[in-house]
């Protein structure tokens, strides 16, 4: 089950990937219900409050951050939108608030240190989960499976290619659905 956070000013955010976890995700990517991606980091904590930074980020830029092509300092100090969002959560029970911060007004002590990079040697960021897209993908799988079974299919696809496609689609569906045990059953 996906982690859902309730973030002031951004609403419900679904955590897409956690890069560092300590008691909770402290460096992670997340998306809003509208599909907007953010890179988030625990920025500050003292006796009175804690702060988090959220940088709106495109999928392409996030993949560069994940691979280490862009370091984390740059990811937050030069956000694509030109500003960050700073969430301040007081410990005295008053309501949290969200403040926009222009990129040239961000304090260095709230940013990851320069040169610090992620180094995720995996496939690019999984396509954002969407139940409709997953359903469509499964329909494609059914068509491919059927093409393997039928000798006179309208779509003549070599069996070896079908097998490769099915393997790749299986991996994609595992990523999409979060179900690592999902298998494409050729018997279905």
């Amino acid at each position, binding site marked *: 089950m996906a*982690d*859902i*956070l*309730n*973030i002031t000013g951004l609403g*419900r955010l679904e955590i897409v990937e956690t*890069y*560092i*976890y*300590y*008691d*909770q995700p*402290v*460096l992670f990517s997340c998306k809003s219900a509208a599909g907007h991606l953010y890179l988030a*980091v*625990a*920025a*500050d*904590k003292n*006796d009175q409050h*804690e*702060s988090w930074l959220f940088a709106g980020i495109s999928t392409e830029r996030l993949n560069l951050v994940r691979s280490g092509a862009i370091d*984390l300092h740059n990811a937050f100090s030069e956000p694509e939108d030109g500003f960050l969002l700073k969430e301040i*959560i007081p*410990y005295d029970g008053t309501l*949290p608030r969200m403040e926009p911060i222009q990129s040239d007004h961000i304090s260095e*002590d*709230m*940013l*990851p*240190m320069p040169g*610090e990079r*992620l180094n995720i040697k995996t496939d690019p960021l999984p396509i954002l989960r969407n139940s409709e897209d997953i359903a469509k993908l499964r329909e494609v799988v059914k068509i491919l499976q059927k093409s393997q079974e039928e000798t006179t299919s309208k779509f003549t696809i070599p069996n070896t290619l079908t097998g490769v496609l099915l393997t790749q689609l299986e991996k994609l569906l595992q990523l999409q659905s979060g179900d690592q045990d999902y298998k494409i059953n050729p018997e279905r």
Partner: protein
Amino acid sequence: MEWPDFYPADCPPTEAEPASGTVYRLVQYNPARAEDFKTPFEENPGRFNNKPSIRNCGLSVHTDMQDSEQLKTVMKMVPRFRDTQIAEGELNPTLGMTQHTPSSKYKSHHSWWVPIGAKPWVVFKIISG
């Protein structure tokens, strides 16, 4: 042993074991204080839609100091943890329950659930800054 009222019914999980052994935790204060042992849900329940879970009611510790040292290095990426220190503590069953919850990077990560009345900061001392 009594657990905080906000704990969900399945917390700690049945797989958890009585706390024991040496653990390491990143702390903000020297000496360690109660604030270093507050769970994310305690500090900000609204963030989790006021829904406590096994995860957000637990604390992170390592049983291998190398994991803590490595994590401290990694925490250069996370401003909030940049000035933390590594504290060592000797756990016992009165301090709650733990479960081995390793990650691919940190094999000795454990989750720790602390009961009402326990004062874990008393048994921790700073060993590395």
